[in-house]
């Protein structure tokens, strides 16, 4: 199928009008779409909809108890954004580990989420931060939006719960509880331009020797980025001594479901999950 229409609308309602037929490819930064379409892994649909010129998709703003990040914000913009840096250090950290300057300048957070790679670097902190996605459509002349928890949005590698006529407008992050701190860890084979072999986000509120309000997520260890609920339960409120840390890390190793691929074997990924979880928690216990 060759592309028959190209649009670059400047308002959200116009963008949603073009999406109504559904046979449309959405273009954001193009950093996934260009290589995927050139390699033939993705076929562009009949319409190509460039949403980069819709100003409201580029904003980061406060919204009752949350921060709303426009889908078209680039990784560079997020890294520098004062609201993101103040409240969501985990996300800013992940952005700092992303690819290279040229890629960070073009890649958008909405593209990272909709591309739904199990190794997508912002997805792991976003899951740990209880993100929700905001999807908009215009089924019968009126703009409708729905919110979906990010944990329910990913349905498989490269697959999401987005309907063909929906646009991802924003990602909503509830403000974390006071005192919340987090760590992001990405393991690849070289520092720049590497797809994660695994990535980890761990956050919580320090309470004596333990962590409460614990959130744990892993990337590249399952068909979708994984919120590790069993690991969270093992970690919640447990005094961080060596035995507890080993127990939590072992739970994590059991909970992840990695595959063998060119970047690492499943066995190696499980060992990485165990060792890195243990190391991060060890650091937290020392801090």
């Amino acid at each position, binding site marked *: 199928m*060759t*592309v*028959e*229409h*190209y649009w*670059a609308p400047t308002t959200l309602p116009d963008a949603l009008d073009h999406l109504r037929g559904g046979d449309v490819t959405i*273009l954001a*930064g*193009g*950093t996934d*779409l*260009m*290589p995927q*379409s*050139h390699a033939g892994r993705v076929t*562009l649909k009949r319409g*190509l909809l*460039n949403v*980069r010129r819709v100003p409201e998709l580029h904003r980061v703003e406060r919204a009752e108890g949350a921060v709303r990040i426009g889908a078209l914000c680039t990784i*560079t913009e997020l890294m520098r954004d004062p609201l993101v840096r103040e409240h969501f250090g985990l996300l800013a950290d992940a952005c700092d580990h992303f*690819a*290279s*300057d*040229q*890629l960070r*300048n*073009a890649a958008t957070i909405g593209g990272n989420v909709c591309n739904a790679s199990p190794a997508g670097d912002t997805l792991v902190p976003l899951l740990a931060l209880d993100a929700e996605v905001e999807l908009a459509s215009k089924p019968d002349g009126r703009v409708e939006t729905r919110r979906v928890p990010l944990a329910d949005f990913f349905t498989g590698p490269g697959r999401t719960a987005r309907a063909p006529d929906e646009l991802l407008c924003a990602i909503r992050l509830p403000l974390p509880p006071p005192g919340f701190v987090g760590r992001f860890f990405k393991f690849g084979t070289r*520092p*720049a*331009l590497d797809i994660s072999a695994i990535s980890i986000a761990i956050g919580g509120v320090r309470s004596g020797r333990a962590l409460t309000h614990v959130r744990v997520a892993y990337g590249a260890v399952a068909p979708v980025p994984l919120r590790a609920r069993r690991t969270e339960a093992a970690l919640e409120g447990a005094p961080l001594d060596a035995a507890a840390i080993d127990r939590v890390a072992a739970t994590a190793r059991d909970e992840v479901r990695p595959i063998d691929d060119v970047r690492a074997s499943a066995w190696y990924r499980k060992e990485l999950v165990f060792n890195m979880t243990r190391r991060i928690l060890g650091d937290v216990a020392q801090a």
Partner: protein
Amino acid sequence: MSLKREIGFLLNGVETRATVPVDMSALAMLRDVLGLTGTKYACGEGECGACTVLVDGVSVCSCLQFAVDCEGRTVSTIEGVSREPLGAKLEQAFVDCGAVQCGFCTPGMVMQAKHFLEAHPHPTRDEIKRGIEGNLCRCTGYVKIVDAIEAASRGDR
């Protein structure tokens, strides 16, 4: 046959029009449609930085950018770099420091260095290395490239 679009943008300060297939990359437009071959094609997948250009003053890999998305924007390539003081300084520093061997990575390096120095006028060597982490050079071993960028930043004071 892919759908084509005529677009207009400011290329190295000159109003430019081009007719491009909507799925073409900005790199292919620059090289094959407009005949500006200073911007290099190497990996074609964002891994090497040889195709780096500035769009609205920000560095991107032109092999990943859709050409149609240049509509109404400002694009700077290596061909126009010496017209600006910082670009001219970088070019000279690359020559003076021997930072060019085969020269294939050089246009991308210079464009990325220009974007980097605009944001970090007085960088450390480590910051320079971080700044060009998306650019690969198969010849120099990077030391002379970092030297050149450092020299250009000193010349700036």
